[in-house]
């Protein structure tokens, strides 16, 4: 029986992907638990960063490279840095976080476990129609779909999202600035005039 020279190699890469998935899944669960139970603020954010990198590696494994790149740049590069900034601005690093009461934590853990059990039973009893056709998606396909006017195109949500981002940016600047813009300008104008006089 001749299986070809690449048979052994292919089999190895297939089982390799499987092991990589299990390692990544274990890493994500461990770091997620560490992130919600750590008593130090900054460590909690760094554990969240590891979970986000795990999500990006799952996107790489299922062959959506563009989405993995977005995940790494926006989440790991943007959101986590923003959170670290806010932690450093707001918190003393050595401060220990206040935790909820033990009884409340146990009750919440039991409720979460019941939730996990219910959802897992539902998922495993449903018969998903998996097609099993391996396809590759290029970035060009995502781009044309995102900007297409035809049925199934996403041009309207795309534009709405851009307006939302602009509004969020302006809102964040105004809220973080604290007082109203007019008053600040007026006061600085008055100060300038006082200095001149």
């Amino acid at each position: 029986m001749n299986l070809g020279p690449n048979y052994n190699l292919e089999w190895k890469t297939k089982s390799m992907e499987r092991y990589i998935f299990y390692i990544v899944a274990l890493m994500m669960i461990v770091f997620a638990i560490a992130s919600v139970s750590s008593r130090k603020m900054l460590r909690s954010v760094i554990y969240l960063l590891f979970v986000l990198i795990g999500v990006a590696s799952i996107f790489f494994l299922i062959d959506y490279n563009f989405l993995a790149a977005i995940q790494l740049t926006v989440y790991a590069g943007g959101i986590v840095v923003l959170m670290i900034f806010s932690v450093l601005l707001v918190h003393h690093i050595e401060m220990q976080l206040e935790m909820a009461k033990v009884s409340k934590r146990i009750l919440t853990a039991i409720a979460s476990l019941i939730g996990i059990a219910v959802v897992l039973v539902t998922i495993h009893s449903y018969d998903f129609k998996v097609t099993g056709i391996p396809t590759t998606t290029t970035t060009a396909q995502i781009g044309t779909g995102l900007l297409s006017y035809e049925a199934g195109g996403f041009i309207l949500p795309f534009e709405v999202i851009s307006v939302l981002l602009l509004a969020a940016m302006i809102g964040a600047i105004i809220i973080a600035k604290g007082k109203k813009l007019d008053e600040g300008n007026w006061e600085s104008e008055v100060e300038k005039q006082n200095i001149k006089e």
Partner: protein
Amino acid sequence: MIEGISIYEILSLTTILFFIGVYGFITRKNLISILISSELILNASIVNFVVINKYIYPDMLQGVFVSIFIIAVAAAETALAVSIIINLYRQISSVEVKDTEIMKY
């Protein structure tokens, strides 16, 4: 799709991540920690969208678009939440949930 991994295993992983996020959302007392928990929940839902798209409808891209929009909305939400937290810290010098009692000054 990942060779040798069925859709059930990935959906189980995202379910566990989602409920870890819910646990953190309820038990944490700090505004930034609550923000972190909500990011965990959002990430679990993103992976769900992408995985169901890849395994059941491999010739379509709707799940990818929806997850891109979720990422954009999450970024906007985090920026606004961080600015609110910083403003709150300036006014009451605390970011604990129990100290934030007044909505508007």
